[in-house]
């Protein structure tokens, strides 16, 4: 099981999912209409490191975070 967390303004509880790669996560989350826009605009971190490929393998206990558009300061 991996855990998916939605940060900042994404009003959604964390999910526990079965997934072998980020591609699996993409497939599962894209079925949720409320998430569609957030998926297009959010960056993704695995275990608190930003990633840029869907081919990343996931292990049991990994944490996936969705980071929507930012505006500090």
């Amino acid at each position, binding site marked *: 099981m991996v855990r998916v967390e939605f940060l900042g303004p994404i009003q959604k509880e964390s999910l526990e999912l079965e997934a072998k790669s980020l591609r699996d996560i*993409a497939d599962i989350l894209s079925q949720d209409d409320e998430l569609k826009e957030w998926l297009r605009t*959010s960056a993704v971190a695995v275990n608190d*490191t930003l990633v*840029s490929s869907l081919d990343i393998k996931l292990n049991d206990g990994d944490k996936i975070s969705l*980071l929507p558009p930012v505006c*500090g300061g």
Partner: protein
Amino acid sequence: MLELYSGPLDVPEILKRWYENEENSNYGAYIPFVGTVRAEDSIEALSFDIYEPILDSWFKAWEEKAGQKGAKVVMAHSIGDVPVHTSSYIAAVFSPKRRVALELIDEFVEDFKASAPIWKYDIIKGERIYAKDRSTCIKGSGLLGEVK
């Protein structure tokens, strides 16, 4: 040094403490950038969420980058509500030389705006509204939205 505070920053205290910390470090230039909440669009305050683990690693990368130029970066940011005319953000650069300091504070503040995992909300009539239009997609965003 990365400092996070609940609510507005005590700007004079922070500027003074940072200055005195480095007074004998032989830096020739100290450039703070202070961001203050402007009264506009009838907001009462801004409010901030921060995701600390990634903010920490983003900041550590900047500490290394600055260190390679003999310089140092420090930063303070608010969490939660910050009323208009109070400050939510201070970044500062210390450097032996002024050119390095002037260039670094600019790059740091711009990268902060584009990359730091901080979310801003307008507080209007007590409601907390995500500042979507002023927000920037972090580089590489959309990874999970690209599927078929």
